[in-house]
C-alpha cells in the first residue's frame, strides 16, 4: 500500500477535546479527551453504559446525538462540522455494532456506490465494473466470503458473524484513514474472530489508525493495540498499554473506578 511510506506526523490524526454529548436529553459523554496519531491502534474498553457506543456514533455523525461542548479535529478539519457522508468520504469509517439490513439493495451495489462516492470526493475517477469487481473479489478472499454474497441484499438474513464480516469487507474496500470498530468482536465464534482480526490487520499501516471499541480483551490477542483506554462515566479515566487489558480481564473495572475517584 502506497501510504505506508507516509511517516507518522506530529499532529494527531484525531484529537477529541472536552467532548460532551447527549442523546434524548441524557448526557452520556462528559468531557472526553482522546488523541490518536497516525499508524496507532487504540482500544477503548469500559463497563456497560459508559459511553463507548455514543463516542462511536458521535464521531460518525449520527443526527440523534447532540454535541453540547468540546471539539473533534480530524486531519485538518472540524469533524463535527461535516455531514456523516462527508466524514466517510474523507476517510472516516465506523464499523457498526449492529449493522443495518437494507432489503432489495445488493451488497455489490452498496459497495460500489460507497467506493465511488469516496473516489469522486477525492477527485479520482469512478472505478468501472471490471476493476471494481476485481478489487472486491480480492478483499472477499481475505474475509473468506463466498461470491454469492455479492448479490445478496445488504445484511438481510445474515447471521451475526456474517454481518460483522461484511462490515470489515466494506472497510477493506473503502480503505479508510481512521476506522472506529464498535464491538466488532461481539457475537463472533473463534474462527470468525480470527478472520475478522486478520482482515483488520491487513489494513494496519503507518498512515492509518484504528480505534477498537470492545468489551473483551480476547480481540486484543489478535489485533495488538498500542494503547488501551478505560472509558467510564463519559470520560477516559485510565490509559495504559496491552497489559492494562489483561489486568482488566483479571480484576474487572472496580479498581480503576476507585482509583479514578480517589
Amino acid at each position, binding site marked *: 500500500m502506497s501510504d505506508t511510506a507516509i511517516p507518522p506526523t506530529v499532529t494527531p490524526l484525531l484529537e477529541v477535546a472536552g467532548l460532551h454529548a447527549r442523546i434524548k436529553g441524557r448526557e452520556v459523554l462528559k468531557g472526553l479527551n482522546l488523541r490518536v496519531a497516525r499508524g496507532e491502534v487504540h482500544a477503548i474498553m469500559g463497563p456497560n453504559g459508559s459511553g463507548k457506543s455514543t463516542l462511536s456514533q458521535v464521531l460518525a455523525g449520527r*443526527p440523534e446525538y447532540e454535541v453540547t461542548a468540546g471539539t473533534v479535529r480530524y486531519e485538518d478539519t472540524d469533524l463535527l462540522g461535516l455531514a456523516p457522508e462527508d466524514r466517510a468520504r474523507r476517510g472516516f469509517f*465506523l464499523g457498526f455494532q449492529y449493522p443495518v439490513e437494507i*432489503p*432489495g439493495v445488493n451488497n455489490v451495489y*452498496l459497495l460500489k*456506490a460507497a467506493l465511488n462516492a*469516496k473516489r469522486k470526493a477525492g477527485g479520482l475517477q469512478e472505478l468501472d465494473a471490471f476493476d471494481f469487481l476485481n478489487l472486491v473479489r480480492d478483499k472477499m478472499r481475505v474475509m473468506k466470503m463466498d461470491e454469492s454474497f455479492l448479490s445478496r441484499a445488504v445484511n438481510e438474513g445474515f447471521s451475526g458473524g456474517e454481518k460483522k464480516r461484511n462490515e470489515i469487507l466494506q472497510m477493506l474496500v473503502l480503505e479508510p484513514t481512521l476506522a472506529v470498530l464498535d464491538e466488532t468482536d461481539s457475537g463472533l465464534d473463534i474462527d470468525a474472530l480470527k478472520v475478522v482480526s486478520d482482515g483488520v490487520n491487513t489494513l494496519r499501516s503507518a498512515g492509518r489508525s484504528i480505534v477498537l471499541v470492545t468489551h473483551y480483551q480476547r480481540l486484543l490477542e489478535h489485533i495488538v493495540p498500542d494503547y488501551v483506554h478505560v472509558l467510564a462515566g463519559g470520560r477516559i479515566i485510565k490509559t495504559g498499554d496491552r497489559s492494562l487489558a489483561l489486568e482488566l480481564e483479571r480484576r474487572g473495572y472496580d479498581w480503576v473506578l476507585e482509583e479514578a475517584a480517589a
Partner: protein
Amino acid sequence: MSSSTQDLESLVGQKYRHGFVTDIEADTVAPGLNEDVIAFISRKKGEPQFMLDWRLKAFRHWQTMREPHWAHVAYPPIDYQAISYYSAPKQNANAPKSLDEVDPKLLETYDKLGIPLHERARLAGVAVDAVFDSVSVATTFKDRLAKAGVIFCSFSEAVQTHPELIERYLGTVVPITDNYFAALNSAVFTDGSFVYVPRGVRCPMELSTYFRINAANTGQFERTLIVAAEGAHVSYLEGCTAPKRDENQLHAAVVELVALDDAYIKYSTVQNWYPGDENGLGGIYNFVTKRGECRGARSHISWTQVETGSAITWKYPSCVLLGDHSVGEFYSVAVTNHRQQADTGTKMIHVGRNTKSSIVAKGISAGHAQSSYRGMVSVLPGAEGARNFTQCDSLLMGGNCGAHTFPYVEVRNPRATVEHEATTSRIGEDQLFYLRARGIGAEDAVNMIVSGFCKAVFKELPMEFAVEAQNLLAVSLEGAVG
C-alpha cells in the same frame, strides 16, 4: 430524534416536472352533462348507432347510481355539471394522415415529456399511441405492427375500422353497470387505445399509450380495450401526465383486457398525473376501473403499476380467472407524498380450476399522505386447487403519513390455498444513517432504500420502462437535503 425526522421530511419534497401547459387552440364543449352532450361526442367521433345507443344506456344507468364513498379517501363533492366532457386540439378536426400533419406544438409537447413521436427519434422497439385530452394525436409503428397482424390504434379509429371487434368485446369485462365511474366513462369516453393481437401472434414490440391532460376544466375519460386471441402475447404500457392547475380534474378511465386460451397480456402503468401542490391544492382525481378476464384455459394476465401522481387514486386492476389453469398477477408500487391519497389494490376472482394468482403491493407514504392497500381474493366453489399468494408492504417516511391495509379474503372451496403477508415499516433512520456513514449522500440513500423496497415490482416492468420508473420515483421523493 425530531431533528432527523425533519431531515427525512425535507428529503421528500416533490417537484413535478410535467406541469407545463401547451398553448394550443382547442375545440371544447361547454361544461355540463346531458344526452345532447353524449350525442355530440358520438357525432364528433362519427360513431355507428350501436355506440350511441350503448353510451345512452350507460348514461341512463349512471343517473340512477350514487358516487361510491367506501374508499379511504376524502374530497369535496364533485360537480359533474361543471366539467367539460370534450376537448380536442383544433387542427385535429380533420384527423392528420401522417405525423407531418400533426401540429408541431403537439409534437413539441410530447418531446418535452420525453415521448418523441418523430420518425427519427422514436423509442426503439416501442410503438406509441399519444392521446391529448379527448383525442389520439398520433400512433407510431402502425405499419410494422400491421405486418404482424397486430391492430394498435386509437379507440376512435377502431370504432371506424373494426366495429365488429368493438361491438363484440366492449363492455364484456367491465359492464356499463359495473360501478359509478365506469358507467360515467361508458357514457362519455372520448378516446383511448385499442389492441388486437390475433391467434398465435407474439406482438413484435412493446405497445404504449401516453395520456396527456392539457385543457382546463375538462375531464379525461379514456377507454382501453386489449384482446389477445388464442396463444397471442402482448406487453402494453401506459403513461400519464397533466399540467399544474389549482383546480382538481377528474380522470375516470376504463381498461378492459381479454385473454383467450394460452394468451398472455402484460399491462404496465406508470401513472404520474399532477399530484397537487404540497398543501393539497389542485391535482387529478384518478378514479379508474381496470379489469382483465382470463377467459381461456392457461391464459395469463399480469398488471404492474407504478403510481406516483394524482391527488387521489382509486384504482383496483383486477383479474377474473375463468379459464382453468389461468394466472393473474398484480405488482404495484404506490407512492404518496404531501396531501396525496391513494386507495389502491386488486381483486383476484378465482372461477376456474387450478387458477393461480399473486399480489405484490408496495406502498410508500411521505408528508401528510394516506396510502391504503385494498385487495380482494375470492375463490368460488368450482375453483378446485386455486392458489393465491399476497404480500403487501408499507413504508412510511416521517411521522405525519399513514398506511392502511384492507384485505378481503373469501374462500368457498376447501381445497384452495390462500396466503397473505403484510408488513409496515418506517423508513429507517437507521438505514439512512448506515448508508450515509458509507459516504452515500442523504438523497441517494433515500432513493437506494426506496428502490430496494420496490425491487420486486420494478423487475416486472418492461426493461425500457424500469429505468424511467426508477427515475420517476427519485423525482417524486426529491427535495433539498438539509
